[in-house]
């Protein structure tokens, strides 16, 4: 840093007292022979014309003669000359002599120029860099009374510099501050400011430093290269000490190199021009040297800066890091973003990319983060942070349960280049592991299993390997591949004595045996589990599973108590349950066992026990359903009805209690099967009364009661009510499964695909456990069908069938499946699907006829007309009565049509005649056009 060593301020004037200035001219060489007055006069004239060198011996001679005088005038003359002699020495560059003379001056009286003398003396010590002396002198100056502005300014300037050079950082700031505030010289102001900053940095006086910053950064001081280097160095030190805030504020003051160099270049150029101009005008050698030194110093600092390795990006990166660290996320983000934009492939660019994404996740801008990640992966699939960024993306989506997004990333994971870097390998397994869970949660167990296998086979050292074995077993289990799952669960147990999933693996082992129908092993495994892990969360389920096994056993004379053991297990299942779901399973399974044994009172007692044990967490509606069933069997129909009505009223306003909807359906069934006409009327009246008296705030209950009322009045009324609800735009939040079921059916009946979508989505999302959920799948299926989206149609049917199988109400799914396959040209699959219908006795009825007709259609499309004819014949021979002969009529027509195509026109005519004679079909609307056609054909 450049320190200036000359005083600035008021110019010193040579003024000699009038008393000694009145003498004549004398030759310089004759000082010793001159009289005192002439001598003084000569010295004065020399001083006035700036001939300091010649004045020196004259003044020295005066002092020599007057120094020992004691009278006031003599002392005054000696002192005046000492002062002027010191000044002359300064002017000729002899500071040491000047200082020596000034010491004499200050040691004697009078000292009218004491302040100036002190300043001059301090200045004299600049060359010898005697900072202690300068400090001492400036303090002496500042301690004097009645100082003028210049003295205050100069004293502080000297003191500040002296202390600064002695590295008395804290003590230098105040005097330098006064100098800054007083000076009118911008150059002094700038230099003092730079010293202040350096002193505050070195003294780690951050608060004071930051107080100065706004002020300094309004001046050109900010362009000083040394200042910037000091700040950068201090910033780094603070950063490394984890003092982020101070590091940040220091770093962000550092200007870019090109700005500093440009400013310095300009400054040097201005100084050189000025020096040239002033040199022509005439300035002292000392002044010239000083100016040259200043220029040289700037040039040196420029060289230092130019030779410095690039620091801008590193500084920006660190600032970004600090911003992120102190939670000023967006400031960090824009810096990282800029660095990345500047150079996407450099190390710092890539690191910035990573940091920017981290920040975006911090601020919840996940879409933006993903967009950046995907762009990066596209540009640099093998980039340094490709794996890290993908793990971030996958993790975020897993947390948000956006599993579809996770599995979409598979191609990106697959295209990652091979690596042998241990950290990258761990990241790679993270990716496979998360990908596996994405697939698992998307119910794609095959793909999930593949990802777990990848880890098991290719990353044996991975921390995820053990869990992958367990979860791969789970993927097999979920696919019903029990024999594949079993070794994984066993392997996990064998290899992980203290594994997190040890108990679960044993339990699943039991489930596998059960699935493989190795009941003996299953029972033994569940028993082992019960004995080993009595406190595990799965204990209740183990009891229930063993209960199921016992319940399935046939009682023999040797072992007559299987059901008793099953019931004992179920009761333990209720007792040990850690969730209401576990308890509910055990309780309702037990109820089924009691039902097998016709133990109705036991059912009632068990349900009471279950409800007492689980209180408000119990599935009260389901329990009430079982109690009601038992009461009916005990002949207590009215009690059952009352109990059902009570449950509907108590829990009916909570849409989530979908057991209430089950009870509504049960109530309708009881009404149809167990109640007399008058009892039915009574029941309808009771429902109506409840509706009349209902609290208007209970809107969900109101709807449920309305549904119950409609269902009790019959299917047509219920359908109409469903249409009414649909038309009224009933808010979804008021609906429960029973209302939604009616509305879904109404949407299908009216072909309103928008409502089919809205209702089915809501139904599936909110009530996935409901017995009535198939209505939602039906609506969803019809919606896809209307959109001619056959793939989705089949997917929807698969889901519905996965949940409800071949229940009596599920015939629609199988017939649509077959029809869709037929439309897609998958004739074999379609025929097989039609054929499946024939194998489900519960679907006997018009559906059989429709399926048979469909099989015929498949054969026609396949060109096998004879077989087709045979199917059509079966339709009108076997299913005459269905739907008022409608299917039989269709069979006749299709049969005739195929005969024509076979060239058997006569047989075709006979078939049509048979249709017109058949009492089941001759009144069908399809018969009339046939009749007309035959008339034409026969020429009538």
């Amino acid at each position: 840093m450049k320190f200036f060593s000359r005083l600035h301020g008021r110019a010193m004037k040579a003024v000699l007292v009038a008393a000694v200035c009145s003498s004549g001219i004398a030759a310089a060489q004759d000082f010793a022979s001159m009289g005192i007055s002439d001598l003084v006069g000569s010295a004065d004239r020399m001083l006035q014309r700036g001939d300091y060198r010649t004045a020196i011996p004259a003044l020295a001679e005066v002092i020599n003669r007057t120094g020992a005088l004691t009278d006031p005038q003599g002392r005054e003359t000696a002192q005046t000359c000492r002062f002027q002699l010191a000044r002359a020495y300064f002017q000729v560059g002899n500071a040491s002599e000047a200082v020596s003379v000034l010491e004499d001056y200050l040691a004697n009286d009078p000292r009218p120029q004491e302040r100036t003398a002190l300043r001059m003396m301090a200045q004299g010590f600049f060359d010898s860099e005697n900072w202690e002396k300068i400090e001492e002198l400036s303090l002496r100056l500042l301690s004097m009374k009645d100082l003028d502005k210049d003295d205050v300014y100069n004293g502080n300037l000297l003191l500040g510099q002296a202390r600064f050079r002695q590295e008395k950082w804290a003590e230098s700031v105040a005097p330098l501050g006064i100098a800054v505030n007083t000076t009118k010289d911008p150059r002094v102001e700038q230099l003092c400011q730079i010293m202040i900053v350096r002193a505050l940095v070195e003294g780690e006086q951050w608060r004071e430093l930051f107080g100065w910053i706004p002020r300094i950064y309004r001046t050109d001081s900010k362009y000083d290269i040394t200042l910037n280097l000091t700040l950068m160095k201090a910033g780094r030190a603070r950063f490394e000490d984890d003092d982020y805030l101070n590091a940040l504020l220091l770093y962000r003051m550092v200007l870019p190199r090109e700005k500093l160099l440009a400013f310095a270049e300009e400054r040097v150029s201005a100084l050189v021009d000025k020096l040239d101009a002033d040199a022509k005008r005439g300035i002292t050698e000392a002044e010239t040297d000083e100016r040259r030194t200043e220029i040289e110093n700037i040039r040196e600092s420029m060289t230092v800066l130019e030779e410095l390795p690039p620091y801008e990006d590193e500084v920006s990166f660190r600032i970004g890091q600090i911003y992120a660290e102190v939670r000023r996320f967006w400031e960090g983000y824009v810096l990282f973003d800029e660095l990345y934009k500047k150079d996407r492939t450099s190390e710092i660019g890539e690191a910035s990319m990573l940091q920017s994404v981290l920040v975006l996740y911090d601020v919840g801008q996940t879409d933006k983060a993903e967009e950046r990640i995907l762009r990066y992966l596209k540009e640099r699939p093998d980039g340094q942070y490709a794996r890290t960024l993908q793990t971030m993306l996958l993790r975020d989506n897993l947390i948000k349960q956006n599993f579809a997004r996770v599995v979409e990333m598979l191609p990106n994971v697959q295209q990652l280049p091979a690596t042998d870097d241990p950290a990258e390998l761990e990241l790679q397994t993270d990716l496979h592991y998360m990908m596996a869970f994405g697939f698992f949660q998307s119910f794609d167990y095959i793909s999930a299993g593949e990802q777990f296998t990848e880890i098991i086979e290719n990353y044996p050292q991975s921390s995820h390997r053990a869990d992958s074995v367990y979860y791969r077993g789970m993927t097999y289990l979920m696919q019903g591949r029990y024999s594949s799952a079993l070794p994984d669960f066993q392997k996990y147990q064998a290899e992980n004595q203290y594994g997190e999933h040890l108990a679960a693996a044993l339990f699943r082992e039991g489930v596998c045996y059960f699935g493989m129908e190795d009941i003996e092993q299953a029972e033994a495994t569940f028993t082992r589990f019960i004995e080993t892990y009595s406190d595990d969360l799965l204990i209740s389920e183990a009891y229930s599973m063993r209960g199921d096994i016992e319940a399935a056993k046939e009682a023999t004379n040797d072992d007559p108590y299987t059901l008793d053991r099953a019931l004992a297990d179920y009761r333990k299942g209720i007792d040990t349950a850690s969730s209401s779901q576990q308890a509910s399973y055990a309780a309702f399974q037990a109820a089924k066992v009691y039902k097998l044994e016709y133990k109705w009172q036991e059912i009632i007692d068990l349900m009471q026990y279950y409800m007492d044990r689980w209180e408000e967490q119990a599935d009260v509606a389901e329990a009430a359903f079982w109690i009601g069933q038992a009461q009916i069997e005990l002949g207590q129909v009215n009690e059952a009805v009352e109990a059902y009505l009570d449950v509907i009223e108590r829990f009916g306003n909570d849409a989530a209690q979908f057991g209430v909807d089950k009870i509504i359906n049960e109530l309708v069934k009881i009404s149809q099967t167990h109640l007399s006409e008058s009892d039915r009327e009574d029941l309808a009246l009771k429902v109506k009364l409840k509706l009349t008296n209902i609290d208007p705030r209970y809107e969900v209950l109101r709807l449920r009661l309305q549904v119950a009322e409609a269902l009790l009045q019959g299917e047509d009324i219920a359908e109409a009510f469903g249409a009414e609800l649909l038309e009224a735009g009933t808010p979804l939040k008021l609906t429960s499964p029973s209302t939604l079921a009616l509305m879904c059916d109404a949407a299908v009946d009216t072909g309103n695909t928008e409502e089919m979508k809205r209702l089915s989505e809501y139904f599936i999302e909110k009530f996935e456990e409901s017995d009535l959920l198939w209505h939602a799948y039906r609506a969803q299926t019809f919606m896809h069908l209307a959109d001619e989206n056959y793939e989705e149609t089949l997917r929807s049917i698969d889901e519905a069938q996965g949940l409800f199988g071949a229940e009596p109400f599920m015939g629609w799914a199988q017939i649509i499946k077959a029809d869709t396959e037929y439309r897609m040209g998958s004739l074999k699959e379609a025929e097989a699907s039609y054929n499946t219908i024939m194998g489900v006795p519960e679907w006997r009825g018009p559906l059989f006829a429709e399926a048979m007709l469909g099989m015929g259609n498949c054969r026609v499309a396949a060109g096998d007309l004879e077989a087709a004819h045979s199917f059509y014949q079966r339709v009108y021979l076997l299913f005459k009565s269905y739907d008022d002969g409608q299917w039989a009529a269709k069979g006749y027509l299709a049969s005739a049509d195929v005969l024509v195509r076979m060239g058997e026109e006569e047989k075709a005519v006979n078939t049509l005649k048979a249709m017109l004679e058949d009492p089941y079909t001759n009144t069908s609307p399809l018969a009339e056009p046939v009749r007309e056609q035959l008339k034409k054909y026969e020429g009538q």
Partner: protein
Amino acid sequence: MNKSVFALTLAGACFLGAAAQAASLAATLVMPGDKEWEGSILSRDGDWIEFQTGTSPRPIRLGASTIKELQFSIKLDQDKLNEMNNNREYERVITALTSVLEPYQEFADIPSNLSFYNSLLMELYYKTGNYEKTREIAASLAVDDRDAALQLKARIFGALALIDAGDAERAEALLEEYGWNEGLDSAAAPEKLYIAAKLLALKKEYADAMELVAKVIAFNSHDPDWMQPAELLCAEIYMELGKENPVMLDSAEEVIREISLLYKDTDEDERAQQLKVKIEALRAELELQKTIEESE
């Protein structure tokens, strides 16, 4: 002391010689071709100006529209003015400045060095929340293209006044007119980024606003003129974002801490402290809401 009397006293203290200027106004007349006359304006009669030069025994009459520029000699006690400004006694400065400029108002239509003082007034009106007056002055200065820096300043304050007055539509139109709605990248001028950020914040587009104001801070940290207001705006927007993501409330508090450290005893510091109180209230509100949700 009576407030108005005090203000008069202050005016006297700050603007030396204002009373002497009341009768005739010392000025330099600059005519086309840059010919200058020292003298004083004696009076104005419609478009006619009566000007007395120092040498001529008789005043001359000139058409106002023929004058290129008037340079009034306005003597100010700059130190006093600075002191008041530093003490943030803006209303007092406005009163005093308005008072001393009053005799010159009838020459407002002629280009003059009054623009500088008017720009000071504009800034002061903005600081005191008088956006109507700010815009009024800004509008007149913005059309004066003699001094590009002053013109830019007028445009900036004009836009800021519209935004602070809540007039997003007109502010948006103005920014579009100036082309300040484009090129808002890291190299953009800090004032442009700052104004655009303010406008977005007004429109409650906080994330986008935050990105822009963050650019002011990240890329213009050596510019104390824009850093100060930008830091405050940054804290304000972090607080808004904190309503959705409470982590951002920490961010807002961090910015406030830095404002207090770097810009102590400034308007921004004062407003940051007010913001801190708001954040505390917001935190309490969020906490309460959380407790209620948990109890439900």
